[in-house]
């Protein structure tokens, strides 16, 4: 099959896609359902509703970047495809937030790792009172989404970057497994984070959004959902505004959308922001609270062999050796994986300058990096962060790293260095502003044990934002119910990563797809029978 940009070639002929920056006057649009956000939650929901015969309007704040824009160039891709031009950080600047802002949302830039929600997490959520989230009731929805998105364990041998994690785990007797990926006909080149240049990645951009469009849905992009208008317990309209795709400044044109039902899928940080801007009834002040990040730290190894960490499927091996190390609700566990290392990203995250920076960069072909996703939100000492509105109505996330998380991060630093030395690393350094390179694990371990870890000195990241509109059956501790239905407003749902009551404990995309498929299917039935 030849590769083409489905949005600009024949395939897309007849699809209704509207660039809001080109609208010359305000608009009022009526529809059955409006879906805000076209990422994992929104894309899945829009397709299922459109397939059920409902009129669907998709609203996306980001631009329509498709194949023709995906040129495997970091400096071009990151500013265009990520929230705040890749400059999003937590309020104190301590955690860099990577999140998509483009049609397809974060799925357009994600690294294709596709895990079912761990049974431990589903059971924990069920114990919190969530309905329909037992491993048994979710299984058919995972099956369904795996089929839709081509999710299968990666059968190509892992690239050398992933092999380091694999062989280190083998030597230490730690568990490791092959990662399932959402790809069809993947070329194994590794540019998933800059927008897949071959359409192989089964992101929402090339699957469910086109699916919805071909069933008559329309897509408005460069259009920000500002706020919902309520009357009593019902939503009357969604007020939207065109946004300049580069500066992100609001433009004069406004679009008002009137629908029978409103689905907010603007993700963690994004969905609570819309609800906060709308003064949504929130008697227990829960909106925006309990936002989770899977805080990520990392270590860098110089390997004797060539690694070329910029080549090949970015993530294919993981280790859960320490993910549930102290039970589900005990000390913070972490999942170990590797990140792809392209030059700009590498130079940006190591936090050095001058000679030290150049010395590390010269060795890029021999660099391996390992990262840990720390599982936040399962213990009361990890209550997550809070989304607040800035004076211009855009969000800021305050996320304090608690002592509990620092303990988890420290243990993760140690284990990552251990696995790299076990795999034969010549030198290892922690991604920490003060860390030198170490020649032996004992030296690295001593340094880390003695170090008091602090924000802005430990280099921390997140690519997994969750929570802020927690699901639950009790309105005093949750924003929406287990179906994603808002507790206080009748015709309003939230369907995306923001409804998770804790973090997932695994890369979240398949958790979102499966949950959204179930919730959207129920919603379609409800709207059809009404």
């Amino acid at each position: 099959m030849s590769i083409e940009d489905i949005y600009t070639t024949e395939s897309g002929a007849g699809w209704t896609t509207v660039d809001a920056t080109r609208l010359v006057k305000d608009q009022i649009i009526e529809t059955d359902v409006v879906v805000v956000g076209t990422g994992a939650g929104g894309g899945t929901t829009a397709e299922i509703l459109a397939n059920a015969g409902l009129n669907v309007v998709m609203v996306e704040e980001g631009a329509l970047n498709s194949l023709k824009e995906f040129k495997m160039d970091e400096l071009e891709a990151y500013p265009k495809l990520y929230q705040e031009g890749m400059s999003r950080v937590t309020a104190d600047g301590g955690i860099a937030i990577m999140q998509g802002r483009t049609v397809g949302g974060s799925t357009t830039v994600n690294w294709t790792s596709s895990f079912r929600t761990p049974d431990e997490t589903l059971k924990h959520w069920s114990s919190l009172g969530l309905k329909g989230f037992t491993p048994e009731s979710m299984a058919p929805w995972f099956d369904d989404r795996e089929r839709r998105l081509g999710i299968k364990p990666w059968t190509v041998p892992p690239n050398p970057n992933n092999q380091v994690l694999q062989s280190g785990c083998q030597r230490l007797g730690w568990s490791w497994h092959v990662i399932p990926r959402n790809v069809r006909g993947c070329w194994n080149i590794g540019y998933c984070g800059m927008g897949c240049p071959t359409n192989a990645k089964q992101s929402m951009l090339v699957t469910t959004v086109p699916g919805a469009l071909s069933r008559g849905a329309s897509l408005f992009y460069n259009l920000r959902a500002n706020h919902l208008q309520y009357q009593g317990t019902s939503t009357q309209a969604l007020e939207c505004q065109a946004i300049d795709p580069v500066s992100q400044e609001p433009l004069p044109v406004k679009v008002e959308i009137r629908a029978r039902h409103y689905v907010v899928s603007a993700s963690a940080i994004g969905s609570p922001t819309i609800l906060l801007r709308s003064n949504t009834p929130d008697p227990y002040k829960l909106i925006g609270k309990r936002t989770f990040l899977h805080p990520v730290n990392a270590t860098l190894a110089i390997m004797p062999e060539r690694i070329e960490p910029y080549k090949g499927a970015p993530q294919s091996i993981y280790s859960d050796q320490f993910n549930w190390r102290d039970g589900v609700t005990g000390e913070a566990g972490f999942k170990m994986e590797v990140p792809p290392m392209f030059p700009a990203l590498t130079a940006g995250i190591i936090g050095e300058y001058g000679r030290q920076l150049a010395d590390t960069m010269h060795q890029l072909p021999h660099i391996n990096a390992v990262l840990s996703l720390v599982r936040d939100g399962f213990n009361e000492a990890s209550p997550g962060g809070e989304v607040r509105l800035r004076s211009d109505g855009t969000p800021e996330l305050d996320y304090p790293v608690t002592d509990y998380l620092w303990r988890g991060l420290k243990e993760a630093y140690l284990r990552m260095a251990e696995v790299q030395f076990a795999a034969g690393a010549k030198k290892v350094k922690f991604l920490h502003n003060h860390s030198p390179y170490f020649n032996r694990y004992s030296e690295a371990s001593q340094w880390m044990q003695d170090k008091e870890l602090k924000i802005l000195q430990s280099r921390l990241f997140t690519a997994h934002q969750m929570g802020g509109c927690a699901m639950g059956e009790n309105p005093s501790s949750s924003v929406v119910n287990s179906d994603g239905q808002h507790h206080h407003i009748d015709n309003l749902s939230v369907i995306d990563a923001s409804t998770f009551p804790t973090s997932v404990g695994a890369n979240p995309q398949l958790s979102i797809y499966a949950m959204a498929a179930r919730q959207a299917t129920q919603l379609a039935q409800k709207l059809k029978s009404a």
Partner: protein
Amino acid sequence: MTKTTHSRRQFLRLSLLTPFAVTASTAYLSGCATSARRPDKPLQDTHFHFLDEDSAQIWQAIITVMIVTDTGDSPSTDEVSLHISRIDQGLRHFSPANREKVSDLFNLLSITFTRGLTTGIWQPWPNATHSDIRQFLDAWKNSRFQVFNQGYNVLAQLAAFTYYGEPEHWEESGYPGPPKEIKAALPQFKSQEIAG
């Protein structure tokens, strides 16, 4: 917890200082400007989208210390100009709120009074020596105050990310760029080939 309040207070002090310093030192600054040594060669591209002349001058001084090229030298003036215009390009895509934060940082660094107080560099940027600049960067990097750590991280990240991301410098990190045969097989590179 006490650390956070401490650094918050420090930040507050800085932000209180800034508006005061802006008005108090404008006259002072304009007096200084003429006595400042001009850079050997003016910046090539002064048509920035976001940066102004002052902030470009700061970048010019800092980059020659932050970036060490393959040969062990500082990058040439032309390279620095290109680099600054790429940083400017990246900043255009920052959110309005984050652009404002970067502006505040550059204001702090361009006004003599606040610059001297926070970096120890009292002379105009073009007169600062490499060792002055190194001292300032290390002080900010290792400071007890979060606001300075944050300033260091912003400067270091922007400079390093942009420099090593530029195709002209891929070779310095041994990165070969996207495989040629793959580009040849993809439609999005076709028009470019024809164009040259």
